[in-house]
Structures are given as C-alpha cells and as structure tokens.
C-alpha cells in the first residue's frame, strides 16, 4: 500500500534483525521467505495501533554503509536514494547489546543521513550473561535518538518499539543531529556535490562522492560527473573512509563506555567458546557435522514415511471414491486421472519437505552454519569455492533458487560465479519425490547394522554424489577460469542460541506454502495438459487401437481386455507419439516411451516427474492398484516380461536426476544473478551432459 509509512530495519549481521521482522510481521509477509541469511529486501505489514498499519522492510545485515558485497549493497541502494520505493520514513537500527560499540558505527552513519532513527537494543539477556549492564537513558541522551530495549526472540518490548515508531512518524518529530563534522574535507568539494545532485545532507554527499561506481540508481552520466568532481578536488575516499571509521569509533567508544558497565574480573569462558572447542575440533568437528547430516537423511526417510503413507493411501481412496460416485466419462477421468493424480503427486511430499526445512532452519537459527563455514573453508578453497559457499550448497538441498540468491554474500566474483554454477548439482527437494519413489522400488526396506535404514542410506549416498560432483565441477571451473581475484573469508561468528520453535515453524510453513503453491501450480497444470495429450490421439487412432487389440486377443477376459485397450490407446495418443519420438535417444539409458513422456514433461520442472508417472499409469494401466509406487511396481516390460523398473533402470533414472538441470526457475535465477544468458546455457549443457553420460554408464553397468 502506498500510503502506509515505511519502517526500515537495519543492523549488523546476526543482530536479530530478521527475528524482529518475523515478530513484527508474523504471517503478514509479502514473500515466502526461505531460511538462510537475508540477501535482499523483505517486506511485510505490521499493525502499529488500531488505525495504523506500517510496511516493515528488512534489509540485509551490514557493518557500515560502505558495501563490500551485493547483499550489503541493498542497504546503500535504499538509504542513499530518496526516490527508492523502500525509502523509509523511520529507520530502526537493531543493535546487539552485547557488542554495542561495533553496532553503534552503523547506527551513527544512518543517523547522520538525517533519518528519523530509533536504536533498538536487542539481546540484552546475552549482554547481561556477559556481565554487562546497560543504561538506555544515558545512551538516548548522548546519541540524541530514542533507545528501546527489545528482546526480538521473546517479542518483549515490541509494544514500546511500535509506540516509539509512532512518535517518530509525527510531523513535528525531530531528526537526529549529525555526529560527524567533516573538517578534513574541503567545503568547496562538499558544496559542489550537494549542489550538483540536489542533496542537502552532508554525509549523503560524502557517501555519494566516495562510492560513485556503486550507486546503481544514478545514471552513468551522473556517475561520471561525480567521479569528475572527486578527481578535480583530489578526494581520497579510502583515506576518508578509514578516518571516518576511526573517528566514529573514538566518539562512539566514549558513549558506549559510559552507557555500558562491565562487571569486574576476568570474563569466564562463555558457552559459545566452549562449544566451539568441540565443534571445531579436528576429529569431533567433522564427526558432529557428518553425524548431523546423517541424522537428517535418516529422518527424512524413516520418520516422514508414516505421514506420507497416510497421504498416499488417502489420496488413492479419495480418487476411488470420486470414481465410484461420479458417472463414468471423460470429465470424471479428467478429474481423477488428471487432476487428482497430479495433486496427489504434490501433497504426498509435504512431510519430507517439511522435515528438510525443519533441519535447515535449525542449523541456521542455532548459529551452527557459521561453524560449518569455518570447518569447510580450506577444503572449499582448494576446489575454487569459499567457506561461504557452504550455505548456498546446504540450502540448495531445499531449493537452488534461494541458494543461488544466497551467493550474494560472497565478495569475490569468481568464487560467487563458481558457486552459482555448481549449486544446482546439490539435490534439491524437488528431486526428493523421484528419489523416494525409485529407491522405494528397488532398494529393500531393511535395517542394517541394527539401526540404519538401508533406504535412508541410499538416499544419503545420492545426496553425497551430488555434493561430490559439485566439488569436482567447481575444481574444473577453477582450472578453466583463469581470473586472479582476491577472495575473502573474514566473518563474524554468531553466538550459539537455542532456536525458537515458532521461527522454525514459520520458516517451514513458508517453505511448504511456496512448494505447494509454486510447484503445485506447475504440476497441476502440466497434469491436466498431459491428461489431454494422453487421452486423445490424432484422427481415429483410438478406435483403431481398440479394434486391433480386440482382433489380436480374442480370448482375453473382459478386465484384461479393457486394460490392454487402454494401454494401446495411450500408446496411440499424442503423448504416446511424443514418447515414441524421443525413445531412440533414451533407449541406451534403459528408458521406454512412457518414461520418455515423464522426462519431457519434467524438463521445465523436475518435480513434475512423479505426477506424470502417476497420470500415465492411471490412464494406461489397470485400476486395481492405486498408489503411484504400486502402479510402477506392477508395470511390465513387454519385451522381457519382467518388471519395467529393474534395478538397472531405476538406478539409471536416479543418476540421471541427480545431475540433470531440469528446472527453469533455477536457470532464470542464474540469469538474473549473472546478468548473462551464457552462464545458464553452460549450466544447462554441462549438467545435462553429465546426466546423460552417467545414466548411460549406470544402465550399461547394471544391466
């Protein structure tokens, strides 16, 4: 809404900004937010009082208004550009109270831009645990802005914060006075920038002068004008920035020292440093990491199985019930074999996706993800990646789209590009349905070594295969890309904290909602189109197919005859012809024309595969078996008389889907993040190429 005031949340990374955002907006967020660090703006509505709604904009974490990576750039884009649609009426700077001095740096920069600024002190409980006591009144007087104590985790102090925001929205509310005078800068220079660009605020003028090339909202002409001015006045922006930072720290350090009282005595070892000793231990560190991964895959398979079975049989009986109440006919067939089969293919995977997101958001919320980055940095560097690549790689297990966007935190372009290119090799949640079904068909549901589920083991092996091939591909790309660019790691380690269950629940809810709505739309649409293509054929081919079956099999019982007819008709349909057309290409991989149809429909989105299978086998098979898995299990290969899905075929399909780049959304995201069609094209070609060769090898080896 245009008339709601805009409140921006700004702060250092890990200060609890997003937690505050969640607490303020709850379910009124405008986008489905995937877990992971905030790399782009997020917006949502909050209610300030009975009559006032406000738009809350959550900006990525940054240490200053001098961005060094693309996510930090967003903050400058919004705060330095008065015509930005997110240009805030009030800025709430969220600060980690246990680390006040460092957090005040960004605060003072924001205040110097002249915004109505509120300092929200978060994590006061952590500060107190560290033996620190804070004096918010003194802080407020010295800084000249309202200071509010909050606890974003438990939502304490939110009413007070909202009340203060309302106060700042009033017409006569005062703006903070500038903390810095730029004496080292020539007056003429400052005036020239201000005049040329119609800027009143001195600090904004300095920010613009220092980072002309980073201001994306300026035209190229304006940028070169700016550069011209800075050159004429021989303005040294690195010196200025260094001096500004040191001066601000000197000033703010005094304020922080006055406002924070520290208990005497040596600081005792905190919980976080003690835990780090274990988690970064040469042996225990890796043991814990792989133990956690193992636990995730085991539970995705064994725990999620129960609710999945309920949904699967539930959908099957719903389908049967609809068939029994509605009259036989085309419309009923569309509803059951087309629509319901497609929907069933979506909802059955909700439990697994929910489990996956529970674990990922637990890793994020607890602060463990940062330790994984430290554990893996050296290894990652040797293959051309970065410790920070770990987060995109791990969150890609959920979905490659937010994962690729998450690479914006990587400061080096080369590291970032390689991460983007290999991230889709990590098995995402859309592959999970395919893996589940295929493993279920050929890997026995046995327990080995007492506790380990063999199917869970197979699943973990597939994920590891994706991970290892991502590393290998990265290594190859590192060899190809000869760019010498400095790569940075430099990162704050957040303190460990107990994840809040409602935040985990919120992120699972958002993820499942996004999966059901986004993937669901595609799957249902394709299911219906597929049903049409599989239920009709050119001319009178359907009648001919029926005639042919009847004359060739005069002795069949009525039930078998009708099955044979529907299967022949499927083969004669448009979809069947399509499948036959592609069959020569996929025969070496062990696939027939029916699998060919599923490969084609899942070309744009791999999650469609199972839905397609279920539609094809509903139309072409007998009606006695109802779940997709049963239909596939009973499918017979007419050439051999053996089951269609032999281990060779199933593993070949599994390997194919581990590698194949079958996701339009991911390619679009790669395009958006690299601003070039070249990279998505390469990504598509190399992944699909590996998929074909690897599936071929698998089939030939196992056959």
């Amino acid at each position: 809404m245009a008339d709601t005031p805009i409140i921006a949340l700004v702060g250092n990374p890990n200060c609890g900004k997003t937690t505050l955002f969640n607490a303020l907006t709850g379910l009124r967020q405008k986008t489905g937010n995937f877990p992971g660090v905030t790399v782009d703006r997020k917006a949502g509505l909050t209610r300030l009082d009975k009559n006032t709604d406000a738009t809350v904009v959550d900006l990525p974490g940054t240490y200053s208004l001098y961005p060094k990576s693309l996510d930090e750039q967003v903050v400058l884009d919004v705060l330095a550009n008065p015509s930005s649609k997110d240009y805030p009426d009030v800025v709430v700077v969220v600060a980690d109270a246990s680390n006040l001095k460092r957090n005040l740096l960004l605060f003072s920069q924001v205040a110097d831009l002249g915004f109505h600024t509120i300092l929200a002190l978060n994590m006061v409980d952590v500060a107190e645990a560290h033996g620190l006591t804070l004096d918010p009144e003194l802080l407020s007087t010295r800084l000249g802005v309202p200071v509010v104590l909050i606890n974003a985790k438990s939502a304490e102090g939110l009413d007070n914060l909202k009340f203060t925001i309302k106060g700042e929205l009033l017409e006569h509310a005062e703006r903070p006075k500038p903390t810095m005078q730029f004496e080292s800068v020539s007056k003429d220079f400052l005036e020239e920038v201000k005049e040329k660009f119609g800027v009143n605020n001195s600090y904004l003028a300095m920010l613009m002068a220092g980072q002309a090339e980073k201001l994306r909202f300026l035209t190229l002409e304006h940028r070169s004008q700016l550069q011209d001015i800075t050159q004429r006045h021989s303005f040294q922006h690195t010196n200025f920035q260094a001096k500004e930072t040191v001066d601000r720290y000197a000033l703010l350090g005094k304020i922080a020292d006055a406002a924070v009282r520290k208990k005497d005595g040596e600081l005792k070892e905190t919980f976080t440093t003690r835990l780090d000793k274990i988690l970064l231990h040469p042996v225990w560190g890796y043991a814990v990491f792989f133990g956690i991964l193992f636990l995730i895959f085991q539970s995705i398979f064994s725990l999620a199985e129960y609710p999945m079975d309920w949904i699967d049989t539930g959908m099957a009986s719903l389908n049967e019930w609809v068939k029994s109440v509605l009259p036989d006919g085309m419309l009923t067939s569309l509803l059951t074999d087309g629509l319901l089969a497609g929907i069933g293919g979506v909802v059955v995977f909700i439990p697994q996706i929910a489990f996956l997101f529970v674990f990922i958001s637990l890793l994020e919320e607890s602060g463990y993800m940062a330790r994984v980055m430290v554990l893996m940095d050296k290894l990652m560097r040797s293959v051309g990646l970065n410790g920070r690549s770990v987060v995109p790689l791990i969150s890609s297990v959920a979905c490659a789209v937010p994962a690729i966007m998450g690479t914006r935190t990587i400061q080096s372009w080369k590291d970032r590009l390689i991460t983007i290119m290999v991230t889709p090799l990590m098995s995402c949640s859309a592959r999970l349905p395919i893996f589940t079904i295929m493993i279920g068909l050929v890997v026995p549901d046995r327990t080995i070594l007492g506790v380990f589920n063999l199917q869970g083991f197979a699943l973990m092996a597939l994920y590891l295969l994706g991970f290892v091939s991502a590393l290998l591909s990265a290594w190859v790309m590192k060899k190809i890309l000869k760019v010498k660019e400095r790569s940075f790691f430099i990162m704050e380690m957040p303190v460990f904290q107990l994840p809040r269950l409602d935040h985990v629940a919120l992120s699972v809810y958002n993820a499942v909602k996004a999966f059901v709505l986004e993937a669901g739309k595609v799957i249902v649409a394709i299911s219906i189109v597929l049903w049409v293509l599989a239920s009709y054929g050119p001319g009178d081919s359907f009648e001919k197919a029926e005639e042919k079956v009847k004359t060739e099999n005069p002795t069949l019982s009525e039930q078998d005859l009708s099955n044979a007819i529907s299967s022949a008709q499927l083969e004669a349909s448009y979809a069947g012809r399509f499948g036959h057309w592609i069959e020569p290409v996929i025969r070496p991989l062990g696939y027939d024309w029916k699998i060919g149809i599923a490969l084609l429909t899942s070309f744009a989105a791999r999650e469609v595969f199972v839905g397609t299978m279920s539609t094809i086998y509903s139309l072409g098979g007998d009606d006695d078996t109802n779940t997709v898995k049963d239909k596939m299990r009973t499918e017979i290969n007419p050439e051999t008389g053996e089951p269609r899905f032999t281990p060779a075929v199933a593993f070949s399909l599994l390997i194919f889907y581990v590698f194949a780049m079958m996701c339009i959304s991911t390619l679009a995201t790669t395009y958006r993040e690299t601003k070039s069609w070249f990279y998505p094209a390469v990504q598509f070609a190399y992944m699909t190429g590996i998929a074909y060769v690897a599936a071929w090898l698998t089939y030939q080896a196992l056959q």
Partner: protein
Amino acid sequence: MSQRNLSQLRIGEKGIIAGFKDTILALKLLEMGCLPGTEIRLTAIAPLGDPICLQVGDYILSLRLDEAAVVELQ
C-alpha cells in the same frame, strides 16, 4: 626480528593491533571493530589449520591465515 602478525598467535594468546599492511582489508577490519590498540585473542583454529577464530571485543571473528597476516601486532 620482523614484526609479529596476527597469524602467528598461538591458541589462547593475546596481541594488540598495531596496524595493517593492506588497505582494502584494513577498511573491512576497521569497521568490524579491529582498530589499532584493540586487544585480540586467538580462541580456536579450524581442523585444517585455517581459518582461525579470534575474540575481538565482545565477539568472535573468523579470518583466514592470509587475512590475519595483514594485521600487525605491537
């Protein structure tokens, strides 16, 4: 003896920042609170020897060895 830098600390050892040998990293480290005169303590080393974790003020910072080598100690 050449000046000691941050990458030469042992676990638990403290040092005081004297200056930086690299401008780009210096700007980044400055805004994260690593100012000249600040006490810094090595708290942990990653299993493969790199990166390292350091206590700066009230938080823990993680740096690669070659990044830490830029920071000169008093």
